[in-house]
C-alpha cells in the first residue's frame, strides 16, 4: 500500500510524520521524498546514498542551416519557448514543457531533441534497511512535476520488485506538485496544526484531493496549541483524526536535533504504531468499497 503524507500549509510536520511512520512500519517499506524543491526526509532517516542520477526534460535544439524561418514551431508552442524575432529563431529552453510539439510541426526537420536538466533522483538505504528515494530539483529550475514523475516511476518499479509498502512525503500546497505526489496513493494522510492557518490550508487540501476518491485521514500536530476549530472541521466533514501529537518544547527540540519523533519515547512509538495500523485498515476498506 501507499500512504501519501500531505498538507496544505508547509511546516505542519509532514516530514516528521513520514519519517516516524517509515520507522515503525511493520511490513517492508520504502520512503519517498517527493518534496523535490525542499527535500528534508533524508535529514531524519539519514540513508547512505547508493546512487544519484540526473533527470532531463526533452527540449528542442535548432539546426540553423536547415531552418527556413517559417515560424511554424513558434506559432505552435503554447509556452512561449520559441520566438521568431526578425531573421532569428530564438529558443527559450527554460520555458519548455517537453511536449515535443515543435519537432512534429517543423517541415524542415530543423529541430531535434536536446536536454534540460531538471534535477537528480537519489537512492539510498537507512541503517534499518529502509530504502529511501529523494528527488532534488536543480536550483533555478521552475518545473517540479516532470522530475516528480520520474522519481515516482522509479519508486513504483522498486516497490513492485521488492513487494514493499511506500510512505510518500509530499510537497506542501494544493497545486500541481502536491497533486502529482498524492495521485496513486491508497490513503492520504493530511498533517495539520490547530491554528487558523492550519485549518484554512487543511480545508484547501481536503477540497483539492477529494475528487481523487482516495480515503483521507488527519494528524493534528502541536495539539493543545491554538483553538479547537480543526477538530470541529474534521467532525463536520467525517474526516477521521487518526492521531494527535501534543505541542511540547521537548518534541520541538527533538526535531531540531534531527531526531525521528517515533523514537523520542515509548509513548510516541506506540502513537505512530497505532497510526500505521489505522492507515492500513483505511487502505483495505478503501479498496473493498471501490
Amino acid at each position, binding site marked *: 500500500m501507499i500512504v501519501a503524507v500531505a498538507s496544505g500549509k*508547509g511546516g505542519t510536520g509532514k516530514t516528521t510524520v513520514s519519517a516516524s511512520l517509515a520507522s515503525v512500519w511493520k511490513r517492508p517499506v520504502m520512503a519517498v521524498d517527493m518534496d523535490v524543491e525542499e527535500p528534508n526526509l533524508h535529514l531524519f532517516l539519514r540513508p547512505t546514498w547508493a546512487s544519484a542520477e540526473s533527470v532531463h526534460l526533452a527540449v528542442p535544439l535548432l539546426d540553423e542551416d536547415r531552418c527556413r524561418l517559417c515560424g511554424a514551431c513558434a506559432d505552435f508552442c503554447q509556452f512561449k519557448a520559441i520566438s521568431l524575432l526578425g531573421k532569428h529563431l530564438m529558443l527559450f529552453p527554460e520555458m519548455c514543457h517537453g511536449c515535443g510539439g515543435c519537432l512534429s510541426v517543423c517541415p524542415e526537420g530543423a529541430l531535434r531533441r536536446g536536454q534540460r536538466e531538471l534535477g537528480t533522483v537519489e537512492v539510498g538505504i537507512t541503517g534499518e534497511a529502509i530504502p529511501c528515494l529523494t528527488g532534488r530539483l536543480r536550483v533555478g529550475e521552475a518545473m517540479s512535476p516532470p522530475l516528480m514523475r520520474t522519481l515516482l516511476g522509479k519508486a513504483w518499479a522498486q516497490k513492485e520488485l521488492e513487494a514493499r509498502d511506500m510512505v510518500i512525503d509530499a510537497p506542501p500546497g494544493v497545486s500541481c506538485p502536491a497533486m502529482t505526489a498524492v495521485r496513486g496513493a491508497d490513503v492520504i494522510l493530511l498533517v495539520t496544526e490547530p491554528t487558523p492557518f492550519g485549518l484554512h490550508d487543511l480545508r484547501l487540501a481536503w477540497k483539492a484531493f477529494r475528487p481523487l476518491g482516495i480515503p483521507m485521514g488527519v494528524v493534528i500536530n502541536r495539539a493543545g496549541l491554538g483553538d479547537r476549530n480543526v477538530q470541529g472541521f474534521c467532525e463536520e466533514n467525517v474526516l477521521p483524526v487518526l492521531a494527535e501529537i501534543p505541542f511540547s518544547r521537548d518534541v520541538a527540540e527533538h526535531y531540531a536535533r534531527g531526531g525521528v519523533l517515533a523514537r523520542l519515547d515509548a509513548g510516541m512509538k506506540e502513537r505512530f504504531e497505532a497510526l500505521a495500523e489505522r492507515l492500513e485498515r483505511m487502505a483495505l476498506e478503501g479498496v473493498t468499497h471501490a
Partner: protein
Amino acid sequence: MRELVILSGKGGTGKTSLAAAFAHLAQGKVLCDLDVDAPDLHLIAEPAVQRSGPFLSGHVAVIDPDLCKGCGACEGLCAFGAIAKQESIFTIDASRCEGCKVCVNRCPEEAIDFQERLCGSWYESETRFGPMVHALLDPGQENSGKLVTLLKAKARERARQLGLDLILSDGAPGIGCPVISSLAQATLALLVTEPTPSGLHDLERVESLCRHFRMPTAVLINKADLNPDYLSAIRSLCSTQGMPLVGQLPHDPAVVEAMVRGEAVTEGPATPFGDEVRHVWGSILHLLDTP
C-alpha cells in the same frame, strides 16, 4: 519602488505571521500575498474585496465523446500521461493536461477542443493595514508562477496610483515556479528560517536560488532558541554568503495566540516578542533604503 519579498524555503517557519506584523508596522505600502497556492495572510489582514477577476491561463484539451473514434493516436503523443482509454473512447485528465496542443493538432477526427483554462481568481482589497492584492489558485491548477506575476503587476500599479513606494510580499515555500516568479524586480528577499536540520537545509537552497537570480537577501532566524548548533550553523552561513542577519526571535506562543485572535503579533498591548519584531522591522527598512 521598493519591494520586499518574504521567503523561507521551508514552510512553517513563520513567514506569514511575520509578514502580518510587518504589514502592521510598515507605513505607506501595498500588501501582496504571493503564496497563491495556500494563502493565509488574509486570515489576519481580513481584506474587504473591492475588485476581483478570473485568472485565465493556458488551455486544456477536451475530447468530444461524440467525435472520438477511439483510434488512440492522442494517447501515445501525450508527454504528460493525461490521456487514457475509458471503454471505447479516450478522455483527458484535466489535472494532468498541460495544454500543449499536440493532441489537438494530431487528432485525425478533429475531435479535441482546446479550451481556455480558468485557474483561479485575483482580488484587490482594502485592509486595516492598507491596500492588499491577493489571489486564490483553484485546487490542483498549475501556472502559479503566472498568477504571481499578475499579482506583482497589480500591486505595482496600485502603488503607483496611490503614490506609495513599498510593496510587502508574502511568498510561497519552496524554490520552484511561484518562488522564482516572486523574485522578479524585487529589491530584497527576506529569508525566514529556524535552527533545525530542515531550516538550515532549505535556507541553503533558497539562498542559492536568490544568488542564481542575483537577488539581495537578508536572514531572520525565528524560533532561534530551539537548537544552539543549528543556530550557529545558520549564522555562519549568513557570514560566508554575506547575508545580513536582521534578527533572532525566540520560540514564543505569542505568535500563535495572536493568530488565533486574528491579529498581527505586534497589534494590541506591547509584548517583548512584539518589541523585538519592531526592532527587526527597523533593520529591514534600513536595508531597503540602503542601495
